[in-house]
């Protein structure tokens, strides 16, 4: 088993860290306070190639394999302190771009992937509804075929990127009698009649990632904008969720790596009772715990990536990764604050924002409780 990355892969990660540190960390405290999304920083990420790394060159991508992409996203999380921006990027890459790439027609890929990879357009995934969160397939949004178009009616909530999105993937029921197999996915452009985005939803964290409700009132969607076949929506969602539960969290490994470095540095420099606080076991042990969680999370994530790369199903492994990584991230953030003491509680040190941002990771892409349910099912319980 070879755990080494190539020198090219490591260079990509280092370059991503340098890019993020140089370009993406201005005014994060202010933007978090104001809850403002930066299109300028989004474009910088797109120009660097982040949005296109795992996609083919014909769509403006770089054709990187999944392990290389994970390493780049780790680098992004390590160098960039704006977790909201990273969350928005991840949301588009894994829940909009990847479904189009896997399930889209050549025409759909040509029309939409290039614009998404280049940063010209922003994408949003519309699955969750006020009445269906963990019970994802209990959708109320309907889609009725009327000749050469569908009419969509319903409401979606907690839609990341909705306020700034040019393109939405909307999941709707086309045949209620078929339950979860009666769900179909649609590519809905901002300008399609009948689509409205409500005012932004204010959140505890990830404040620089915009979120809103999406209302569909006789929203007219051409038949050629249906993604794959009728009834394939659940499979599209499940495919996307495996990518979400793994790749979306790669940047959180980068966050944990950054926090570990900051804590080691602080523990060596901060002196109390005439010695560095890192010499006290209570502090050293916390940092060791951070290291153990980081390396374990990495291994689980790389296993998922390897399974996806070798075109194997990774349902249970993705759930394991999501559960462990997200909960490790929250613990890492809490430890980082505790190690920094009173300073860790201040806005200036940016650790409190990391914690507020981290809590969402135990909720999105299926809550920790749902991940445990999934793992239990796979175990035959």
């Amino acid at each position, binding site marked *: 088993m070879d755990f080494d990355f190539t020198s090219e892969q490591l260079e990509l990660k280092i370059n991503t860290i340098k890019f993020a540190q140089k370009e993406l960390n201005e005014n994060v405290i202010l933007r978090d306070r104001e809850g403002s999304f930066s299109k300028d920083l989004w474009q910088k990420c797109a120009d660097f190639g982040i949005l296109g790394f795992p996609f083919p060159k014909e769509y403006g991508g770089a054709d990187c394999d999944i392990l290389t992409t994970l390493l780049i996203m780790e680098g992004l999380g390590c160098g960039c302190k704006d977790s909201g921006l990273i969350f928005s990027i991840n949301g588009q890459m894994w829940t909009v771009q990847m479904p189009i790439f896997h399930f889209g027609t050549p025409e759909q890929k040509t029309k939409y992937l290039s614009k998404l990879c280049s940063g010209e357009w922003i994408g949003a995934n519309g699955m969750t509804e006020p009445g269906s969160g963990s019970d994802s397939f209990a959708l109320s949004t309907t889609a009725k075929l009327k000749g050469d178009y569908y009419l969509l009616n319903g409401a979606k909530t907690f839609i990341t990127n909705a306020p700034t999105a040019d393109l939405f993937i909307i999941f709707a029921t086309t045949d209620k009698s*078929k339950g979860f*197999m*009666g769900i179909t996915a649609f590519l809905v452009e901002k300008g399609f009649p009948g689509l409205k985005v409500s005012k932004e939803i204010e959140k505890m964290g990830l404040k620089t990632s915009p979120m809103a409700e999406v209302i569909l009132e006789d929203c007219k969607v051409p038949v050629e904008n249906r993604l794959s076949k009728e009834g394939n929506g659940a499979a599209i969602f499940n495919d996307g969720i495996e990518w979400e539960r793994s790749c979306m969290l790669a940047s959180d490994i980068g966050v944990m790596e950054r926090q570990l470095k900051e804590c080691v540095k602080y523990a060596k420099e901060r002196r109390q009772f005439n010695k560095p606080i890192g010499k006290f076991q209570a502090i050293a042990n916390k940092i060791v715990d951070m290291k153990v969680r980081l390396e374990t999370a990495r291994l689980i994530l790389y296993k998922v990536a390897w399974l996806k790369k070798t075109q194997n199903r990774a349902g249970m492994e993705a759930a394991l990764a999501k559960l462990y990584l997200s909960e490790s991230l929250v613990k890492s953030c809490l430890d980082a604050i505790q190690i920094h003491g009173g300073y860790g509680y201040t806005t200036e040190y940016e650790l409190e924002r990391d914690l507020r941002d981290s809590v969402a990771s135990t909720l999105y892409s299926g809550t920790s409780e749902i991940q445990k349910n999934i793992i239990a*099912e796979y175990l035959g319980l």
Partner: protein
Amino acid sequence: MNIISELENFLITEVSVDYGLDKKSVASDENLISSGIIDSMGILKLVSFMEKNFGIKINNEDIVPENFQTLNALKEFVEKKVKKII
């Protein structure tokens, strides 16, 4: 290889039992989805089973009602996959 009986046995012993369905048999034209035998989690387990048991690769775009709605539909789908028609 009796495709229908292997699938039926899997559905009875591994899938429907999860949902408190006391199934002893599944009719070949019974609607697996509306009867509650397969739900969104069950289908993932079924797909994994089919890939391992029949040595086939199921693409996500194949996971549509016409291939999974009944045992007859599943049998036809597996046969096409085995013969590499789809």
